[in-house]
Structures are given as structure tokens and as C-alpha cells.
């Protein structure tokens, strides 16, 4: 892919000027906080807020706890080990509505990043795979059932006429296991988070088949999720946290900050990766594994707003692929209600407002060329989606 159109609603902030005059909120109930994260580049806002002192600036003393996979983090969150954590965008919805073991009332104040994923395939498929139709019989890694990766890959495969439940083997792998599985020929490819797409290229295990940005530009990826109970008991802390993470996301999004974001995340306690690898991803200048060097500044973006359309699309897809624990989520209105129970748009708006950042204006999402009309969700819950 070459550079796409800039999303219309990117917050217009001068680098380093936002929130300068913002000070810690008075009356933070409990400034000590443990936040869980998965060591991937999407975690930049949550992680970098610590070394950059953004949490401290907002009056929080945060301990970051690293987890190996999303199920582990899910378990720890449900068990109450962490009250606020890095999540995949579908997770707060699944947790809140109880689509799997471990229901927990959850709210999601911020989507922390958009784009930032890719389909990486083993080198042996270089000359044979043109589109989803060529992936019949593949074993493809995904990080979690309740992930945009899963939903996007399934939809993408379906556009090639494949039934993702029957014609391929979608195998859940922890992000860190993906490259080794690709190297050993255990899988044909994966739709995974960075840095593992780029690490696969660096290790000669595979090539970047497509960025998810090219399937749905501006798709939600990771988010901040907190337990309802905690948010209600600690309203000021919740507000401070939301503000701090939004601040860090906006900071991370600035192209000028990206080399520094890469370097401070690369250390052993956070992502434990080579800084150069992270820099190439964040800066959007990277080899794609086929010999070309790509320029793609939108490979990943950090635009902190929980748009309801995201939630509604996610719910349609969970319904579509049978991931709702056999429940029918209903029509558009019901999906909207189910989304707003979880997506805490007011909290996000207030945080951005506090920071002096504009709220992004509405836009229509386009997924694999199909526009998403929130009033017509029914077409998105059928196995075959036609516009």
C-alpha cells in the first residue's frame, strides 16, 4: 500500500503543546494502579505514559504488568488482578455482555490505536496468493477470538468465498508464538499485531501480504478497558486515567515522537525488542519481506476515541461468526444500546476536552470497500455480506 487519505477526524494538535497546562486532578481516590498490557506496539500509549511521566503528570502512580496472551490477561482482569488494562477492541463488549467464561461489567473510555495489524504469510506463498480465495486450506494464526484481527480476517476470507470455519484453520496463538510457528512451517500465516509482522520479515520467516489498514483504514485495534465497579468507586481516578492515556495516545500519534516512542518501549521491561524494529513500524518505513521498502506513515495510528460505529460493527461480526454464546443481539437499535453500555464516549469527550483536543467528527467507515451503515446492521450479520 501507498499512503492513503488522512482520516478526516484526526485531532489537530501541535506536537507537544496539548495539555501542557493540564494538572493533576484534585481528589484522586487511589493513585496506585496496576495496568496490564500485552507487549505489542499497539500498547504504546499505555506503556509509554509511564517512562514519559504522563501518568505522573496526571497524578497517578502506575505499575505496568506484562501478560503473555489475551486469555491470560482476560483471566487476570476477571480475577481482579488488574482493574484497568490494555484490551482488544471487542473484549470490553464480550466481557460486559458475557460472551465467554468470566462476565464482568466493563466500560471502555478510549480506543487507543487504529490500524497496526497485518496479514503475514510464509515466504512459500509469495507467488501463489493473490487474494483471500487463494488461502483455502491455510492454517492462519489469530491472537484471540475477541479480536479485530479475527473479525477482520474472517470477513476478508469471506469476501473470497471461503467459509472461515470450514475452509481454513484459524488457530489462536499468543502474539509471541506467531513468528516461531511461521518459521517452523506450523502455520501458513497470521493476522497479528506488530512488532511480530515485522519480526517475521526480519527473521526471514515471511512477508507482509497486506496491512489491515488496506482492508479498513482507521479500524479500531486496541483500547483501554476498566471495570465498571472500579470506575464507579474511583470516579476521579478514572477520569485522570482516561485523560492520561488520551494524552499519551495523542503524543504517540505525532510522527515526530515516534522514534522516541519506539526507543522507550523497546526496553526489556516493556516490549523487549530491538528499537530499530519498532522504529521502522512506528515511522512507517520498512521492508515488506519481498525486497521492497515501503513508506506507510499510517501503518499504525493512535487516535483515542471510542466511536459507536466501531462497537456496532464488532457486535455484528460477533453475531455473524457465532461468538455471542448463542445469543441474538437484535437489530441496530439493540446493537447501539449494547455498544453504549460499554463505550464510554462521554468520558472520552471530557478527557479530550480537558486536554484541549477536538472531538473527532462523524464519518462513514468503509470495510473492504463496503460502507458500514449503522442503521442497516442486518446485512453485516449474514455469512455472506453484500453491499
Amino acid at each position, binding site marked *: 500500500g501507498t499512503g492513503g487519505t488522512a482520516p478526516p477526524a484526526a485531532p489537530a494538535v501541535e506536537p507537544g503543546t496539548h495539555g501542557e497546562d493540564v494538572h493533576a486532578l484534585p481528589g484522586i481516590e487511589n493513585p496506585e494502579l496496576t495496568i496490564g498490557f500485552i507487549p505489542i506496539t499497539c500498547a504504546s500509549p499505555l506503556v509509554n505514559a509511564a517512562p514519559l511521566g504522563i501518568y505522573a503528570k496526571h497524578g497517578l502512580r502506575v505499575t505496568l504488568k506484562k501478560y503473555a*496472551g*489475551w*486469555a491470560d490477561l*482476560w*483471566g487476570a482482569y*476477571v*480475577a481482579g488482578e488488574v482493574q484497568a488494562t490494555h484490551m482488544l477492541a471487542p473484549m470490553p463488549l464480550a466481557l460486559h455482555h*458475557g460472551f*465467554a*467464561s*468470566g*462476565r*464482568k*461489567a466493563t466500560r471502555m473510555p478510549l480506543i487507543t490505536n487504529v490500524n497496526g495489524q497485518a496479514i503475514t504469510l510464509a515466504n512459500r506463498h509469495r507467488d501463489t496468493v493473490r487474494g483471500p480465495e487463494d488461502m483455502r*486450506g491455510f*492454517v492462519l494464526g489469530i491472537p*484471540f*477470538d475477541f479480536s479485530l484481527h479475527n473479525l477482520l480476517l474472517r470477513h476478508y476470507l469471506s469476501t473470497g468465498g471461503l*467459509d472461515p*470455519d*470450514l*475452509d*481454513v*484453520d484459524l*488457530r*489462536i*496463538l499468543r502474539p509471541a*508464538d506467531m513468528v*516461531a*510457528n511461521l*518459521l*517452523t*512451517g*506450523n502455520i501458513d500465516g497470521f493476522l497479528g499485531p506488530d512488532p511480530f509482522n515485522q519480526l517475521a520479515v526480519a527473521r526471514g520467516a515471511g512477508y507482509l501480504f497486506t496491512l489491515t489498514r488496506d482492508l479498513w483504514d482507521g479500524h479500531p485495534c486496541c483500547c483501554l478497558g476498566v471495570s465498571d465497579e472500579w470506575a464507579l468507586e474511583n470516579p476521579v481516578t478514572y477520569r485522570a486515567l482516561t485523560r492520561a492515556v488520551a494524552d499519551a495516545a495523542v503524543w504517540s500519534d505525532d510522527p515526530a515522537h515516534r522514534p522516541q516512542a519506539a526507543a522507550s518501549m523497546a526496553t526489556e521491561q516493556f516490549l523487549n525488542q530491538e528499537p530499530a524494529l519498532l522504529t521502522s513500524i512506528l515511522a512507517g518505513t520498512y521492508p515488506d519481506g519481498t525486497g521492497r521498502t515501503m513508506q506507510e506513515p499510517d501503518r499504525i495510528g493512535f487516535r483515542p476515541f471510542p466511536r459507536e460505529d466501531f462497537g456496532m460493527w464488532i457486535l455484528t461480526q460477533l453475531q455473524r461468526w457465532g461468538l455471542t454464546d448463542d445469543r441474538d443481539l437484535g437489530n441496530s437499535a439493540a446493537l447501539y444500546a449494547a455498544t453504549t453500555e460499554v463505550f464510554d464516549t462521554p468520558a472520552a469527550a471530557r478527557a479530550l476536552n480537558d486536554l484541549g483536543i477536538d472531538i473527532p467528527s462523524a464519518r462513514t467507515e468503509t470495510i473492504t470497500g463496503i460502507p458500514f451503515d449503522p442503521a442497516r446492521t442486518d446485512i453485516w450479520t449474514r455469512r455472506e455480506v453484500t453491499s
Partner: protein
Amino acid sequence: MSRDRALAALILFVTTAVFIGLWNMATSGNDGGLAPTPAATLRSAIEILSDPFYREGINSVGVFWHLLASLQRVLTGFLVAAVIAIPLGFLLGSVRSARWGLDPIIQILRPVSPLAWLPLGLALLRDAERTALFVIIMSALWPLLLNTIEGVRSVNPLHLQLARTVEAGRWRVIRSILLPSALPQMITGLRLSLSTSWLVIIAAEMLVGGRGMGYFVWNMWNKLDIPAICVAILIIGLVGLALDRAVSALHKVVPHA
């Protein structure tokens, strides 16, 4: 005797009932938690066991096939380990300098967690299936090797003296004296090996994936289907018990053991 048996049955019944009662109490209150209720587990068991043989799509199969895959890996790895460990054990059991020389290596490799071998296996063998085998071999090898060595060393020295006085050849000594002497302890080694292998395959399959009871557990964990994990635990336990009983039965085949 029969009063004791009745009492034992009562104890078993009461213990099980108390256990299930506590389990139900602990889980049925907070239906938001991860822990499954006994009822949910039972439903899951019925669902899993009612159709153990299905095959659907390219890699969605019933629990029977997972079990089969694990058993196959364990038995293959176990056999390879036996083929390595038994002759090596005889050699090290009877040649002191070889034993002394290799002992440091054995002692260090033995306590390494088989799971730590997994990444290394993947790196070296570049194949998930062979890695699983490698890990099984690395875990099954040591109990078998050490027990064979000990078994050979425990041979009654009078029996060896007897062999010398009747001028028995080396091969006859191995076949008619060392082997039968070492057999009981070798069987103990086999049992330990098999149970370690069974313990380890579950872990190994979590990483190498595809098929097997470990993959089943791992997948259910990733899908957050905890009742299915409870069912898998029970299946793993029962099959492990059956394997152990099968090897123990060898003790009866060897009459003097």
C-alpha cells in the same frame, strides 16, 4: 474386610459429595467469574463426550481425535526414549568410567523443565511435530535411564560370580542375569517415564498446537471455555491412570519382580 470395603465406599461417596457441594457453593453465587459450576461442567461433558468423533472443516475435530494424537505422541516418544535409554543404561550400569564420565551431563540435563526444551526444540528442529516428540523424549529419557542404570547396578554380585564360575559368556550374562535383575526397576522407570511424558505432552501441545489434549485445553483456555477444561482434566486423569495401570501390569508378567 468387607466391612472395611463398605466403609471405603462410604468415604468415597461422602468425599465426592462434599467436594461437589463445596464446588457448587463456591461457584454458583458469582456467575460472572471464570470458575464453572458443576452443572455447567456436566453439560459440557455431555456435549463433548456425546460426539467425540466428529470432524468438521480442516481442523475441527472431536475430543477422541485429540486424545488419539496425544497418545500417539506420548507412545512414540516413549518408545524412542526406551530404545535410547535401555541400551545406554546397560552400558552405563556396567561400565563405571562411562557412568562417571556422562553423569555430570545427565545430572544437569535431567532437571531441566521439558517446557524449556520446547523453544529450543522448535529452533533446532523447525517442525512442531518433531519438537513435541523431542520434548517427550527429553522428559521420558531420564527416569528410564537412571532406573535402568540402578537396576543393572543392583544385580546380585553373587549371581555375577556364579556366572564367572560357570564360564558364562558376556551375552549370556546380559540376557540371563543382568536383564532379569534389572527388569523390576526398569519397569518402575517405565512407569515414571510414562507418567512424566503424559504430564509433559499436555504442556508441549499447548505450544505446538494443532491437535492433542494439550491443544484442546489450550484452545479452550484461549476461547475461555473453562467447563471444557474441567472435562479435559478428567479425561487426562483417567487416561493417565489407564496408561499407568497398563505399565504396572508388566510387574505381574515378570514373576519374580
